[in-house]
Structure formats: C-alpha cells, structure tokens
C-alpha cells in the first residue's frame, strides 16, 4: 500500500440501467453520502425539487405523504413546453434503507409500476438500487421509449403541427 491509497477514493458514480427481467428496469448508482441523507433527499418535499429531473425542467408540484398508504405526486415542466406528472402511493417506508411505492405516469394512467428502492451504505457511501416492476413487457418498453422526457402525446402533437405546415 502506498500513501495515496489511504486518501478518499472518488466512488464510481456511473449509472447502470439494466432490464433484469421482461417486466423490470433497474437503476444502480453510488452516491458519496451516507444513506440517511440519500433517503431524506428522496423523500422530503424540501429536497426533491432541487435534483429530480433534468436541469432544463422545473418541478411544478411536489407532494409527499411519507407513510404506508400515503400518496405522492410530482409534476415537471418540459423544456419545450407542456408538463408531465406522475403519482403513486407508498407501500413500505423503512428509513434509511428501503422504500417501496407505486408509480403511475399520468401519460399512461391505467398502468401502475411498483418501485422498490434499496440503499446500502459502505464507508460513508451509498449504493442505490431502484427496480421498477411493470405489469407487462409492453408497458415497460413504452415507459423507456417515451423517455419520461417528452410525453408521447406532446411529441405527436408537434409532429402533427409540423406536418400541417409542410402541406
């Protein structure tokens, strides 16, 4: 061991997106903070709007009732105009290591995903694993394809407008 190895190493914060089964998407990411803080940042209205979504989006609504059976709802503005919302209900709240909740993208109101977020702490760093379980492979694929970024309807409207002007 040399002297340098005793210094704090920068953790590998690469985001991993995997599809462990037909109906699941798993996000894995390491944060350089204790899990107590990561859990708070995920579950408190005073924190979530500071980071949730791309920088070009604005969080218009952030409601969290953090208890089993409690509801949550987020609405984000899109850079190109329009907004998209999502909501759900907390199923398990076990700070600071486990959170289970349902999630409905308001663009696909009939389809609910079950999200299980697990936080593991090691040497002051936190590994987050969030798995979304969808009811079918089609719904999962639709969520990924829509990219959460531009509501599919929004894009289609724009395309329609565009085609209209090209006539």
């Amino acid at each position, binding site marked *: 061991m040399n002297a340098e190895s005793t210094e704090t190493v920068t953790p590998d*914060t690469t*985001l991993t*997106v995997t*599809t462990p*089964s*037909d109906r699941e*998407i798993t*996000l894995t*990411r390491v*944060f*350089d*903070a204790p899990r107590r*803080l*990561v859990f*708070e*940042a995920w579950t408190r209205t005073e*924190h979530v709007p*500071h*980071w*949730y*979504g*791309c*920088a070009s989006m604005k969080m218009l609504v952030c409601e969290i009732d953090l208890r089993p059976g409690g509801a949550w709802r987020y609405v984000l503005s899109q850079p190109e105009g329009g907004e998209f919302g999502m909501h759900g209900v907390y199923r398990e709240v076990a700070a600071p290591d486990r959170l289970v909740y349902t999630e409905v993208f308001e663009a696909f109101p009939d389809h609910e995903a079950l999200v299980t977020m697990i936080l593991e702490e090691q040497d002051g760093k936190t590994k987050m694993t969030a798995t979304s379980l969808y009811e079918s*492979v*089609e719904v999962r*694929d639709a*969520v*990924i*394809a*829509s*990219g*959460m*970024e531009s509501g599919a309807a929004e894009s289609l409207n724009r395309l329609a407008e565009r085609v209209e002007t090209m006539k």
Partner: protein
Amino acid sequence: MPHDPLSTTLAALADPTRRAILARLALGETSVTELARPFEMSLPAVSKHLKVLERAGLIARGREAQWRPCRLEAKPLQDVAAWVEPYRRFWEESFERLDDYLKDLQSKEKADER
C-alpha cells in the same frame, strides 16, 4: 412474448455468458475454440450461445474460412442504447444534480455542528 427485433436482442443479452462472449468479441473477431477457453464449457454449449447471439443479429459468423470466425455486429447494440438513452439521460442528469445537492447538505450539516 413479442418477437420484435428489440425484444430478441434483449433476450439474447439477458445471459452473463453471452454478454461475456460479446465483450470478448468487442476486442476483435476470433474462433469458437478461442471463445470457449475462458468458460468452463463444452464447445457445443458455447455453440448454443453463439446461435442465440447470431439469431439476434448480435454476431456474424464468417463463411470464408474453415474456422468460421465470429465477429460482433454493432447495429442491434446501438438500437438498445438508443432505446434506453432518453431514460438514462433523465436519471443521469437527476443523479448528477443529486450529487451536488448531497454535497451541499453535508457541508450544511457540518457547519451546523460547529
């Protein structure tokens, strides 16, 4: 099970041995014998994996040489990446902002302790 090309690619990728084979092929084309070496597996077992990968269009087998070299085909992998990309970008950007925010929270906590 739907049989669109993307689903076929994802099914082929849902196996660690097949992913390892692709990782090896990313370094350049090689023979089946060479591919089997790092795995404790019979040649027929490896051939089976190669067939799945070939059907998904992830690899191609040469016809020109006796040893039928395997090589990686980039297109299906690019399709998978393009499909996941906007989703990944949303979360990547969120988590980068979360990194900064957690740093702020931690320094605030330290300041409060003083």
